[in-house]
């Protein structure tokens, strides 16, 4: 079955350099069981992975985590990515990277920086991150990146506590002279599932936010690019998760496991291969994980007969599994799914309760 699917050329590689992170964000989408520092891939292995990725057709690498700044060899790793010819993007919390390191990264050829900011209000931002002083440090690092001439993206994860301040966040991003802001509603995977009720906004807030983003995009056209990630649980159609399973991107975990998407390990019974044992090319073409849900042949109805089948690929496999118990099912975010009522009901379960912060044990 898998071999019958046309093999696409990947464009992106998410390199999770470490699961370590100083912040405790309640919406963390990393898995419940984090990979330990002792098992993290070394810089030389990452260099090999980047070369193999470039040969496979990958154009962009996203250095992520956890907080990539927790790696002392981050600059070497970034330099290896550039040497491999990859467009190199750093995704950081802004905490744990000092000004000096930012300069070294710039010299190493870093192409772009994305800094997460939790809110436009300092007190709320630090509360969400579970880290006092994080907000100021983030602003300082973002300013340094811009000063160096690096294009900056500000990332805002939207939820119940900050959804009313999207406009103020865009103003903050403009003040920082960011080229782009990513307004991403929380996706409920990994640790975020624990805090779903505390993070879930009200339906009317979501509707307002969607309209507000549209208006802001018009208002600031030409000054800042506004990209939005839709609020899954309130949508009518599912997202084309990672552009289709095993179609456009790969994700390498801190210990070298290669996943078709960030959350793929939540689906039981899938065998993941490791870059320590095999080449990236072999993993891309032949690993059971990448072939598990390639294409659309595995999809049941309503997808099978749906015009959007090649648009959204039936949505997200991890979400289908998390909410229906069947990873092959139509993503229940879709209003045509027989399980859609369950999503609608979960979207109404909101609670003003304390966050379960993510802490490295």
């Amino acid at each position, binding site marked *: 079955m898998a071999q019958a699917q046309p093999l696409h050329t990947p464009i992106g590689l998410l390199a999770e350099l470490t699961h370590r992170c100083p912040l405790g964000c309640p919406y963390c989408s990393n898995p419940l069981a984090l990979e330990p520092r002792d098992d993290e891939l070394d810089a030389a292995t990452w260099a090999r992975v980047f070369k193999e990725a470039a040969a496979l057709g990958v154009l962009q690498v996203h250095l992520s985590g956890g907080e990539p700044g927790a790696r002392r060899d981050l600059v070497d790793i970034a330099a290896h990515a550039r040497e491999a010819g990859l467009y190199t993007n750093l995704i950081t919390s802004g905490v744990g990277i000092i000004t000096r390191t930012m300069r070294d990264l710039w010299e190493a050829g870093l*192409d772009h920086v994305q800094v997460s900011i939790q809110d436009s209000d300092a007190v709320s931002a630090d509360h969400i991150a579970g880290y006092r002083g994080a907000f100021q440090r983030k602003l300082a690092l973002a300013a340094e990146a811009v000063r160096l001439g690096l294009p900056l993206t500000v990332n805002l994860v939207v939820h119940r506590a900050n959804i009313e301040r999207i406009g103020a966040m865009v103003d903050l991003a403009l003040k920082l002279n960011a*080229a782009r802001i990513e307004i991403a509603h929380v996706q409920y995977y990994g640790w975020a599932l624990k805090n779903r009720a505390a993070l879930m906004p009200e339906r009317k807030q979501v509707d307002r936010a969607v309209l507000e983003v549209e208006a802001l995009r018009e*208002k600031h056209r030409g000054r800042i690019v506004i990209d939005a990630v839709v609020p899954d649980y309130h949508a009518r159609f599912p997202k084309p998760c990672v552009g289709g399973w095993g179609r456009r991107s790969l994700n390498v975990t801190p210990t070298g496991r290669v996943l078709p998407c960030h959350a793929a390990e939540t689906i039981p019974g899938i065998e993941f291969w490791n870059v320590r044992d095999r080449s990236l090319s072999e993993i891309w073409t032949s690993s059971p994980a990448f072939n598990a849900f390639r294409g659309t042949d595995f999809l049941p109805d309503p997808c099978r007969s749906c015009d959007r089948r090649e648009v959204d690929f039936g949505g997200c496999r991890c979400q289908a599994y998390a909410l229906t118990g069947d990873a092959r099912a139509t993503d229940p975010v879709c209003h045509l799914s027989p399980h859609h009522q369950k999503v609608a009901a979960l979207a109404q379960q909101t609670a003003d309760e304390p966050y379960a912060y993510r802490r490295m044990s």
Partner: protein
Amino acid sequence: MTAPAQIPPDSRPRLPRGVRLTNSEAHGGWVLLAPERIFKADAIAYEVLRRCTGEATLTEIVDDLARTFNAPRERVASDVTALLAGLAEKRLLEF
């Protein structure tokens, strides 16, 4: 700033840091790499973009293209301006 960016004829357009034109065999030609974005550059876009180095003015770029491809200058000017204004609006071009 809702109007499309106006690029003055004497400005010197260039790709800013974080925007790179690169040849990818795997993807069948030239691509423009940008923050979280990839654009395929067709033959014409490639010829325009490779001239956006911050050295030549818009006028010089248009003249050069019209001469090289033996095309009517007016037509080249409007095509190039449209392409560059679109990129500037996405912050993929400085001038």
